């Protein structure tokens, strides 16, 4: 059932609430569809990460400098908390991938609240899609390498200890979970969190700005909108770190599942 309210002609007067169109940034150079802000930000994030960690690792000393300490604690967090504790003794093979994933997603997310940049790259859905696709291929490739194609698929499709007729119900679910739902939820969770968070900030900041242009009563209310926007900015920072963590954690867990023997 669809409902329509009479708002024709409001778009050019009054307040334009932010919508999905605000994420559609035009390219800097006309006709070159690659020169958009998200793509530039993705390259910029790669630059930031490389420069930071090369500087941090260049002069490694027994008594670390502040920079080295910062770099090492991030790396140590990913390697120990997400690698060793989840994957087990084979974690060093996957530490580079997990670390790259975590820092890339984290920096791109935090762009959403950095002043003058203020656009989370991951709120364009193609970026999470590609990251989830890489994770998808990584964990299936590892599973196939470890068990062989037939045994791996068998392990996914038939869980032990179930009466035979029940496999008709369960096998499609297992297949769909492994091949469709996992990459889908992985990418859409990251995308939706970043999208909604950016939209939320836009609503409060643009709303506060619009209230400031109203009559005196509205002007008095607008600071509250800005205060909420600032509070939400800190909340967003938390969400952005959490989403980078969850994406990496789930990647590590999927890899663990592909490596596991019982399967």
């Amino acid at each position: 059932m669809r409902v329509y309210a009479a708002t024709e002609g409001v778009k050019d007067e009054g307040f334009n609430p932010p919508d999905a169109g605000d994420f559609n940034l035009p390219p800097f150079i006309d006709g070159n569809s690659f020169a958009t802000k998200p793509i530039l930000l993705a390259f910029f994030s790669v630059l930031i990460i490389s420069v930071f960690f090369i500087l941090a690792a260049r002069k490694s000393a027994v008594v670390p400098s502040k920079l080295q300490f910062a770099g090492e604690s991030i790396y140590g967090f990913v390697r120990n908390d997400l690698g060793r504790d989840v994957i087990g003794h084979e974690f060093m093979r996957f530490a580079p991938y997990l670390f790259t994933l975590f820092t890339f997603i984290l920096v791109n997310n935090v762009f959403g609240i950095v002043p003058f940049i203020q656009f989370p790259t991951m709120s364009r859905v193609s970026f999470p899609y590609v990251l989830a696709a890489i994770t998808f291929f990584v964990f299936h490739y590892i599973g196939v390498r470890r068990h062989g194609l037939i045994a791996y698929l068998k392990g996914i499709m038939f869980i032990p200890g179930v009466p035979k007729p029940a496999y008709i119900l369960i096998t499609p679910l297992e297949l769909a979970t492994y091949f469709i739902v996992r990459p889908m939820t992985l990418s859409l969770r990251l995308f939706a969190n970043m999208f909604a968070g950016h939209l939320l900030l836009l609503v409060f900041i643009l709303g506060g700005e619009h209230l400031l242009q109203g009559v005196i009563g509205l002007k008095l209310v607008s600071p509250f909108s800005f205060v909420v926007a600032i509070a939400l900015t800190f909340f967003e920072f938390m969400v952005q770190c959490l989403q980078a963590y969850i994406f990496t954690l789930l990647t590590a867990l999927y890899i663990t599942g592909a490596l596991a023997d019982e399967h």
Partner: protein
Amino acid sequence: MSAKNDENAFWTIFGYMLSGLLIWGGIGYGLDWWLDTDFFLLGGLLLGMGSALYLIWLRFGRE
């Protein structure tokens, strides 16, 4: 480790139920569209949710 296991179980459960609804509900939707009926969709959704819950019980509830 156990907190991470909880996290994993949480998303696994969510994934199972989503795929149950999508697969069996999708089959029911297709049958409805093909045969011009309207009860296969509901049946498919219920069947999908039932088998997803059964699978979750197998995975997490047995030990």
